[in-house]
């Protein structure tokens, strides 16, 4: 594991760059635990102060220090993405492995449902849900809903691998030696699909964070909990751009771009590492 990491850091520029960007984000998130202010408290500092030695990123019209807000926001936004990614990975894994292993009619039915769900437009359905739930739409509820929407494509990928694993000799051995289906799926097949799981996790994380930012900017999530989108929502609500308080909008934008670029670079380089063909191309073969 460490050897792989060391190789990637040494030979893969994207991975190195991505790691540096993510370390900046992680640093800010860690620092947010030492914040002198409560993350949801308002009017704790002088409002509308431009960036200075005292307030590194300035302060908002709601009297919050942008620096400490950014840390807490990044933590919440990333946490949202991680929850969505983990939950939807579990669903995708179960659906993909079961569908691919059992095959036949069951597979057809499961994949029919899978494709139908995948073909539904996510945003309108999500917005409808936000609309009818209103104030009951908490942050964690939103994460669960997003997770329920974001797995269909990846379960198909996992199924395609499971389909070929089913034909392999070792699966037959496992069946004859009396392993239960669940044991075969977890012990024998799971390791083979882990690379796909890792790769799709990155993409799903990027998707989920983008969703959170979008919905929060529109004011459709828990707006009192600091998130990157939530910060921009409040800045819009106070017309920060028109009032010339650019730092309130600029810093969340800057750091969400850093977060996205970092995750994207890591996803790209890990994908390249997993796919031997592009590794060969890099080596000049």
């Amino acid at each position, binding site marked *: 594991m460490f050897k792989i990491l060391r190789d990637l850091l040494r030979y893969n520029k994207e991975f190195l760059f991505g790691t540096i960007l993510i370390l900046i984000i992680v640093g800010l998130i860690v620092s947010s635990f030492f914040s002198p202010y409560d993350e949801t408290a308002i009017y704790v500092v002088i409002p509308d102060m431009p960036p200075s030695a005292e307030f590194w990123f300035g302060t908002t019209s709601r009297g919050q220090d942008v620096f400490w807000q950014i840390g807490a926001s990044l933590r919440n936004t990333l946490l949202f993405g991680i929850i969505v990614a983990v939950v939807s990975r579990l669903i995708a894994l179960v659906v993909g492995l079961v569908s691919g292993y059992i095959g036949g009619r069951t597979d057809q039915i499961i994949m*029919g449902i899978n*494709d*139908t*769900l995948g*073909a*539904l*437009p*996510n*945003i*309108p*359905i999500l*917005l*409808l*849900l*936000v*609309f*009818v*739930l*209103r104030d*009951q739409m908490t942050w964690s509820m939103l994460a669960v809903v997003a997770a329920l929407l974001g797995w269909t494509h990846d379960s198909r990928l996992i199924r395609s691998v499971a389909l070929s694993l089913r034909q392999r000799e070792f699966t037959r051995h496992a069946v004859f030696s009396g392993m239960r289906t669940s044991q075969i799926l977890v012990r024998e097949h799971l390791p083979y699909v882990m690379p796909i799981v890792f790769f799709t996790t990155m993409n799903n994380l*990027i998707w989920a964070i*983008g969703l959170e*930012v*979008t919905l929060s*900017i*529109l004011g*459709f999530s828990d707006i009192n909990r600091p998130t990157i*989108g939530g910060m*921009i929502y409040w800045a819009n609500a106070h017309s920060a*751009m028109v009032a010339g308080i650019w730092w309130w*909008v600029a810093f969340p*934008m800057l750091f*969400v*771009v850093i977060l*996205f*670029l970092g*995750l*994207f670079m890591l996803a*790209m380089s890990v994908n390249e590492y997993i796919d031997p*063909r*592009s590794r060969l*191309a890099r080596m000049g073969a």
Partner: protein
Amino acid sequence: MNGFLIYAGKRFLQFLFVVVTGITLAFLIAHFSPVDPVEQTVSLLTSFGSTDPQSVEILRQSLRELYGTGGPLIDQYFTFWGRVLTGDFGPSLSSFPTPVMTVIGRALPWTVGLLTLATIIAWIIGNLLGALAGYFRNSRLLKLAGIVIMALQPIPTYIIGLSLVILFGFVWPILPISGGAQVNLTPAFNWAFISSVIEHGILPALTLVLVGIGGWFISMRSLVSNIITDDHVVYAELGGVRSSSIFSYYVARNAMLPQVTGLALSLGNVFGGAVIVEFVFNYPGIGKLLISGIYSGDYSLVLGVTTIAIIAVAAAVFVIDIIYPLIDPRVKLG
């Protein structure tokens, strides 16, 4: 041709299945919500004055009629389907008494125009650059373009849109940053109006193009770099076929097919991008309609837009599915 009919029939069944599931889901979400739209509207209207209990009860009755939320659930479900099939979602509350369908009909051309244009431009540029970058792998210019495009790709739509607003609206104000056309112009088929529409469309379209281009670029580049190691390409190179012909006939053509499927799949996601782009640029399309419907608590409008979006996306995927075998002879019919 018989095979094609079976294929088309199967696809059509799937299309129907998607629509039915989607609309059922929308119905269930709307009806199992803890918020009763009737009570909500009643409290909204009574907060402005009229508190006579008898008139409130009459109001409640007529609203229940309007939203189709009276009677047992199964009846409501069929009432809802009746509304979907006749395209009658009742009057919009926020722009009473205009019917929801008229409001949607007014917004639809804006969104369809903007999205079609932006998606196609992004698709063409992304694929073209991706194919070139995959084929001429040592070109410095293409490498640089690749880095820029890939850096833009993961950035959320809102951030790119807002950056463009700041850049072209405040720093270098040359383009309108809000609305679909100049307000004082009446929609007509004349140059003043059309040019205004184009002018107002540039930044929203540019945002969508910048967001969309990266995905096409990346997948096309990797497809092409896989194809150029295939035997038939190597053989053509050894046979002295001009590299421009190899590129267009041997490589790009083969790589196109998965990209066409991708186009269909992306249509579903494009709607999400449209919502935020229309929000940023205050563009008078479906997305902005949906958002303002949510803000103003316009129940029938939100349900109507969601239903239209589900049908539209499913139909787009269906159409692309039908065209697909005409492009790719290898696709299995039947």
